[in-house]
């Protein structure tokens, strides 16, 4: 009961520093700080040699070149052993010709999965659910996605979130619903009456003072 309580209270939050870790992976011992200066997608899967996870790993491997163009690294995690990860990655490559190019944490003692709130006892008391933590180049958590065991993740959405966050950081703007690169972006709403009046004169495309958009 105490363990479950600890897992529930240790969920990280957006805008917080990502919990540090040092973990055994399929590419050696890796610390979170090794990723400083790069963006990182830390994602968990329930178990090796399972069907939905296999489709996800193939999909993550397929978007890895696009992520690298955006300065983003991938790091998988489950509570399986490193030998299991290696065997699974080799099997995926043998059967599908897709090489898993990113490291996978073997979180046998559940240290990382507990720190990141990846075990949801309502889904499984022993396996990690399908979490995605997008961590920026300053090691701050920028996005958290949780998917249930039965639902595979959407890679287009993950890429879209990366593009949106990096566009926000580069231009000081927000992105509207269903935004895609090249679409108009949202100007942050004004904080004062004076700014609201000025906003309408600035040549943006405005529905009203609180909703103005522009092309980048």
């Amino acid at each position: 009961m105490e363990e479950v309580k600890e897992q529930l209270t240790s969920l990280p939050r957006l805008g917080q520093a990502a919990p540090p870790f040092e973990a055994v992976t399929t590419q050696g011992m890796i610390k979170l700080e090794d990723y400083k200066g790069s963006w990182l997608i830390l994602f968990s899967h329930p178990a090796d040699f399972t069907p939905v996870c296999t489709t996800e790993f193939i999909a993550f491997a397929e978007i890895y070149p696009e992520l690298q163009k955006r300065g983003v690294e991938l790091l998988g995690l489950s509570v399986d052993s490193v030998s299991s990860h290696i065997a699974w990655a080799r099997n995926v490559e043998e059967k599908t010709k897709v090489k898993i190019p990113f490291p996978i944490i073997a979180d046998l003692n559940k240290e990382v999965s507990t720190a990141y709130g990846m075990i949801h006892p309502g889904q499984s008391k022993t396996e990690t659910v399908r979490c995605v933590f997008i961590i920026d180049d300053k090691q701050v958590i920028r996005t958290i996605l949780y998917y249930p065991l039965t639902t595979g993740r959407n890679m287009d959405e993950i890429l879209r979130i990366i593009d949106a966050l990096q566009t926000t950081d580069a231009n000081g703007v927000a992105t509207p619903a269903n935004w895609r690169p090249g679409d108009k972006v949202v100007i942050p709403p004004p904080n004062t009456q004076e700014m609201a009046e000025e906003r309408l004169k600035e040549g943006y495309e405005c529905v009203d003072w609180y909703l103005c958009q522009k092309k980048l």
Partner: protein
Amino acid sequence: MACISPDGKPTVSGAKMLRALKAKAGSAEEVSQQAGLPLFRVRSGLRELAQAGLVSLKGEKYELSAKGSELADSLPA
């Protein structure tokens, strides 16, 4: 270990880092560029090579130790 095999021989990525450092001492970023490896791999690998006594950090640059130089010299070109 990711850079050094249990038999003491460098792995492919370990050999790339040793070759890069044989050419020139450098920061993790410089080794990453020279070796063509992701920065996180190089940071992790340099830590491992340092623990094995093959490299040391002088200021902000990594350089080969005498043992590391000997190993780097034995690598095929």
